[in-house]
């Protein structure tokens, strides 16, 4: 073997970095895109139920959120982070949480609050303690309660898809006091032909997306199961105790933002506990608060508030449920001096 036939490596373009030198190829962008994909059935259901304006509302929210994020990163002198897709996802979720009649400017205000106050003031993706989309939604709810609680009836199934939004306002299952008889048939509730936010009504579409995320291990199953389960148990007990005043648990589970919240918003990894035990506590906490607000509070729906309040508990939960490192006797968080 002569020296000349052997090609030696050129070392001038080498990269040095820390181990490990392999990676499994996952990325934030892929995760966010998958969540968006998982939301598509529910979006479609929203458009079919409420007409093309639903699409418009979601589009405005997505575009506005992305714009706000771009502007904020620019102002802060950071590189643009639109590529990770989280702003688009926040926008989509915000849109799905609004009534189909929300005017475009209100969507923009919501986007500014969601991304601006909910996320960018903390430095962007990963640092926000509260769920941005819900910050936006709750701010809109408190700022414009009338607009945010005016629900229109779903399009009649026979009218063409492009027909405008029905102007008939229709109450939501939760917004009308329970009188002992169901306002909507179970089937209507199930497929989402009720009043409500445009992306929250269709149960099968949401569950489908949620199961996809669970299968792909993007979200932990503990959160939705505990969240929905807790609501079912508490409303179930209350219903048994007072059937004329409290709706049956099935109605509670299938109405309002519970499905959307449990599968897509209480699972936002940034704002929820890291570990499995934490996920269980988080889910149960959300369920309890939701049920309490629904049954005894003055707001008809409590999912958004419940998730935001539990977001505030997240650092505490993390601290007290942090797993024991291998070979360590006590939990790390508990050792932190109080």
């Amino acid at each position, binding site marked *: 073997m002569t020296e000349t036939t052997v090609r030696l490596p050129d070392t001038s373009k080498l990269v040095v970095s820390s181990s490990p030198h392999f990676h499994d190829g996952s990325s934030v962008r892929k995760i966010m895109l998958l969540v968006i994909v998982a939301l598509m059935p529910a979006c479609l259901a929203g458009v079919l139920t409420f007409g093309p304006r639903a699409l418009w509302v979601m589009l405005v929210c997505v575009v506005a959120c992305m714009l706000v994020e771009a502007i904020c990163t620019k102002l802060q002198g950071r590189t643009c982070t639109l590529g990770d897709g989280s702003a688009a996802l926040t926008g989509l979720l915000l849109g799905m949480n609004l009534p189909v009649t929300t005017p475009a400017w209100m969507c923009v205000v919501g986007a500014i609050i969601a991304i601006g106050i909910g996320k960018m003031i903390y430095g962007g993706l990963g640092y926000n303690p509260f769920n941005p989309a819900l910050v936006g939604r709750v701010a809109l709810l408190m700022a414009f*309660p*009338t607009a945010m*609680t*005016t629900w229109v009836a779903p399009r009649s199934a026979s009218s063409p898809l492009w027909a405008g939004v029905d102007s008939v*306002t229709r109450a939501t299952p939760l917004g009308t006091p329970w009188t002992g008889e169901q306002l909507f048939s179970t089937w209507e509730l199930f497929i989402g032909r009720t009043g409500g936010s445009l992306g929250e009504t269709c149960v099968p579409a949401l569950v489908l997306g949620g199961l996809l995320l669970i299968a792909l291990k993007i979200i932990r199953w503990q959160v939705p199961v505990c969240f929905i389960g807790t609501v079912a148990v508490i409303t179930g007990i209350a219903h048994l105790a007072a059937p004329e005043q409290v709706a049956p648990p099935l109605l509670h589970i299938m109405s309002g933002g519970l499905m959307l919240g449990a599968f897509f918003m209480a699972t936002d990894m940034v704002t929820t506990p890291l570990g499995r035990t934490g996920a269980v506590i988080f889910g149960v906490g959300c369920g309890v608060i939701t049920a309490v607000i629904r049954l005894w509070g*003055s707001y008809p729906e409590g999912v958004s508030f419940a998730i935001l309040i539990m977001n505030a508990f997240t650092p505490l939960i993390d601290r007290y449920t942090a797993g024991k490192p291998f070979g360590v006797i006590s939990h790390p968080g508990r050792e932190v001096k109080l």
Partner: protein
Amino acid sequence: MKDIIRLCLVLAAVCFCGAAALVYVNAKTLIPRQQAQQTALAESLFMVLPPETNAVNALELPLDKGLSFFLASDEEGRPLAVAGQGSTNTGFGGEVVVLVGLERDGRIRGVMVSKHSETPGLGTKATDRKQVKSLWKVLAGKEKDLDFPPNDYLDIYSGRQAGSFVLGGGSAEQRIDGISGATTSCQAVLAAVNRVCDAYNKNRDAIWAAQ
């Protein structure tokens, strides 16, 4: 020891002077304060009563808690109209107190909400009689003060016969349309008005007889 006494004395002296000042101010403002309290009620009362009203007397009647009536009389002491005050706890922010001015024939002169804690800008659409003045008009000097500022919701009651009203339903006389988005507040006002009307209808004779 000396130190201790000195400390006590200084503190006591300061308290003494302070207390003296307070007693003085208290004495001086006692009457204005009471008047201020009375005028607050009186102003609302006069708004639902006829302009000729000269004197208003609170009536002593065996009524439920939260209900009271006032009789307005003219210069010669003739009874002119009645004002009923009623309260309910069903507002969005809790208590709502209304004043209902009633003519001799049992017709409602006007309704005022004298106390509430409804959401500003939302529930207040159904409760506040506040004149909204435009800055530009004020600057141009075109804005006039109104005696009885309008309220879309409360004005529905004016001129109707005191009875039991129903929000968005009932017979034509009973029907009252609410304001969308503020249903709770409308309902609360309505409940309070109904209480007053009920009590008025039951005690009509006693009320007018009281002099």
